[in-house]
């Protein structure tokens, strides 16, 4: 029995995600990963030759690269790549109208709180059910403006002239073992192109979900905001509970051309057996701005360090990150800011909460080379420990050379004090309610940066997580 299986059951996904429907997959690549698996995926998806070559090259790199356990968690060694199923699909095209979506898929979405009425508020919906996008819908207005919002497969088939020049450029295949794995077997995810000067008022939104045991989900998202374009993308994840480990390894590439703005918002609430190993990076050209707002709840091990390469003059990058690690969970999160032009600025604000035996780690990389002038970075990372056995670590790596650049780094670790809890209890709140309120207060300034429907959900998720933390 694995170490994690011994740990007590968690109050995770109590209201969302703790359910699944009978599996019925039209295509299944079987377990394990070989060139045959890749060819099977390419055949089913009818991939063009260049993608087949890309995948096969990625497979080679994946197989050569060791797990990064010299710096990362040894828990990675517990991933058995031979037992994972790398491709499952209903074998269906992305749906455009809600009526065409199969009933069991609808049921899942409804359970996740994506009722039809919400569509009114959403500019476009691209919800991923297992490997393939099961449902997608773009408001006509956007389409008229030339906005492309499709699944990654459809994107590479239909729009190769936009897709191909940027695909795999922000995050090369060999960036790390898991970006290589994703490059080999990716399916699903979104491709978005916002044309020059188009400013989207409403966020584009996608829901992700895993619904098969031991099934790795490898979505691949590429977002390109052309010059002066502005857009927000929201991604939320829940997953049903499983007995054995599930691997989730996404790659998200953002490209903000001159003067463009991209905001990418993620709320993840994985069940406690998921390995969530994600590579997210943006490329910001002159006067462009990329902001990652990232919230990680749940999973067995999350490794995720959203980054921005500040390639053009005056480009701005920001990462706002909340991580919550409960029993048996390790949130290894942070940010990377690579300054590659003068007068670029970056801002990192990371807050983590460790509950019970939960562990959170912050890893930050800030790189400002010697020849640059007028670059600024601000980093704040704060950790809150709930129980005596909770753990947090900070691993900042800051390399700043040259005279004309400034860096500010602040870190804090705090505990919820017994006096604070007593004070709140004296006002009638139970110990758990007091804990929840205290934790919500700790992340409040960051939660307020999320869109309202996410911040409400986030507070509810934190409440659920806190339930098992006292007594």
């Amino acid at each position: 029995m694995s170490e994690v299986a011994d740990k007590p059951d968690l109050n995770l996904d109590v209201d969302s995600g703790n359910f699944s429907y009978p599996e019925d997959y039209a295509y299944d690549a079987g377990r394990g990963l070989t060139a045959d698996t890749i060819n099977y995926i390419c055949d089913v998806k009818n991939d063009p030759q260049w993608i087949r070559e890309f995948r096969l090259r990625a497979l080679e790199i994946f197989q050569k690269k060791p797990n990064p356990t010299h710096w990362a968690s040894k828990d990675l060694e517990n991933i058995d790549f031979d037992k994972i199923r790398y491709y499952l699909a209903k074998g269906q095209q992305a749906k455009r109208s809600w009526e065409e979506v199969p009933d069991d898929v609808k049921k899942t979405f409804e359970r996740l709180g994506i009722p039809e009425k919400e569509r009114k508020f959403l500019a476009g919906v691209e919800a991923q059910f297992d490997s393939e996008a099961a449902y997608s819908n773009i408001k006509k207005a956007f389409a008229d403006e030339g906005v492309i919002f499709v699944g990654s497969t459809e994107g590479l088939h239909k729009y190769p002239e936009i897709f191909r020049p940027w695909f795999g450029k922000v995050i090369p295949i060999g960036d790390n073992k898991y970006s290589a794995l994703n490059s080999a077997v990716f399916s699903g995810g979104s491709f978005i192109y916002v044309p020059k000067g188009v400013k989207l008022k409403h966020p584009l939104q996608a829901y992700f979900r895993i619904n098969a045991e031991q099934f790795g989900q490898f979505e691949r998202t590429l977002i390109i905001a052309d010059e002066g374009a502005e857009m927000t993308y929201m991604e939320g994840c829940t997953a049903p509970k499983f007995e054995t480990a599930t691997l989730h390894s996404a790659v998200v590439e953002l490209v903000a051309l001159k003067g463009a703005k991209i905001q990418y918002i993620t709320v993840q609430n994985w069940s406690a057996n998921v390995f969530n190993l994600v590579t997210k990076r943006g490329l910001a050209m002159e006067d462009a701005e990329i902001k990652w707002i990232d919230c990680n709840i749940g999973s067995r091990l999350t490794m995720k360090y959203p980054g921005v390469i500040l390639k053009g003059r005056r480009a701005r990058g920001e990462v706002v990150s909340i991580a919550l690690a409960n029993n048996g969970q390790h949130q290894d999160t942070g940010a990377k800011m690579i300054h590659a032009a003068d007068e670029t600025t970056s801002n990192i604000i990371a807050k983590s909460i460790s509950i019970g035996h939960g562990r959170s780690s912050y890893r930050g990389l800030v790189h400002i080379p010697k020849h640059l002038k007028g670059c600024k970075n601000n980093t704040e990372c704060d950790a809150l420990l709930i129980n005596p056995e909770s753990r947090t670590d900070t691993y900042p790596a800051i390399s700043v050379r040259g005279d004309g650049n400034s860096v500010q780094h602040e870190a804090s670790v705090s505990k919820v004090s017994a006096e604070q809890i007593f004070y709140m209890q004296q006002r009638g709140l139970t110990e758990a309610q007091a804990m929840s309120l205290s934790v919500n207060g700790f992340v409040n300034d960051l939660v307020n940066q999320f869109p309202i429907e996410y911040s409400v959900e986030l507070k509810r998720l934190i409440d659920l997580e806190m339930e098992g933390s006292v007594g």
Partner: protein
Amino acid sequence: MSCIEIRNLHANIEGREILKGLNLTLPKGEVHALMGPNGSGKSTLSKVMAGHPDYQVTAGEVLLDGENILEMEPDERARKGLFLAFQYPSEIPGVTIANFIRAALQARLSEGEELDAVEFYQNLYKKMDALEMDRAFTSRAVNDGFSGGEKKRNEILQMAMLEPSYAVLDETDSGLDIDALRIVADGVNRLRGPKLGSLVITHYQRLLNYIVPDHVHVMVQGRIVRSGGKELALELEAKGYEWVIKEAGLEVTPEPANG
């Protein structure tokens, strides 16, 4: 009769006995002052009543309207109608006063019942107007960076909103200048009435110039040694505590630094 009745209360902290058989009755509708030299156990009494986990009760009872509350969690006691205005209120960063009070009121409702937000704010603003508080006050995080006076006013506002049956005000006057003292005392006086019994703990008589008590109790070395009318406070002010201690047959010891 509606009252808090404390019978033969003994309590320890870290094995040291602080309360040594304390008896006190606080009827609803009255204001009682609890006075005594530093180190006599006044603050300990307030914490034991509220259920602070650092204190162990070794004997005795605290009956709230006839029901012993000593086995209850602090929050259950609070929901039964006991309020403690803290001498040193905790900071809760990121949680606004409005949200905090709302959560406290919500905690008093049964499951599935939702506090009406509009009514809540109407009530909050009414109470704040009465206490002459700026409305911007409630959007600040609870006690975060507050002055001594602001902390105490926040306690009074919470008390006004939670409408307890019994309130213990622990050294509410400490750390206040005379203007702030007057405002806080004024707030307490406004809450005075037949539905509230208050125990005002203070070291100095000066608070009692503003909050005139119905009864005064003197606490020395973990016990009430003398009770009387409001004139007792004036007598203590004039003559100090020594004579009471001697009359109680206790030894006069130098005052420790903390109460």
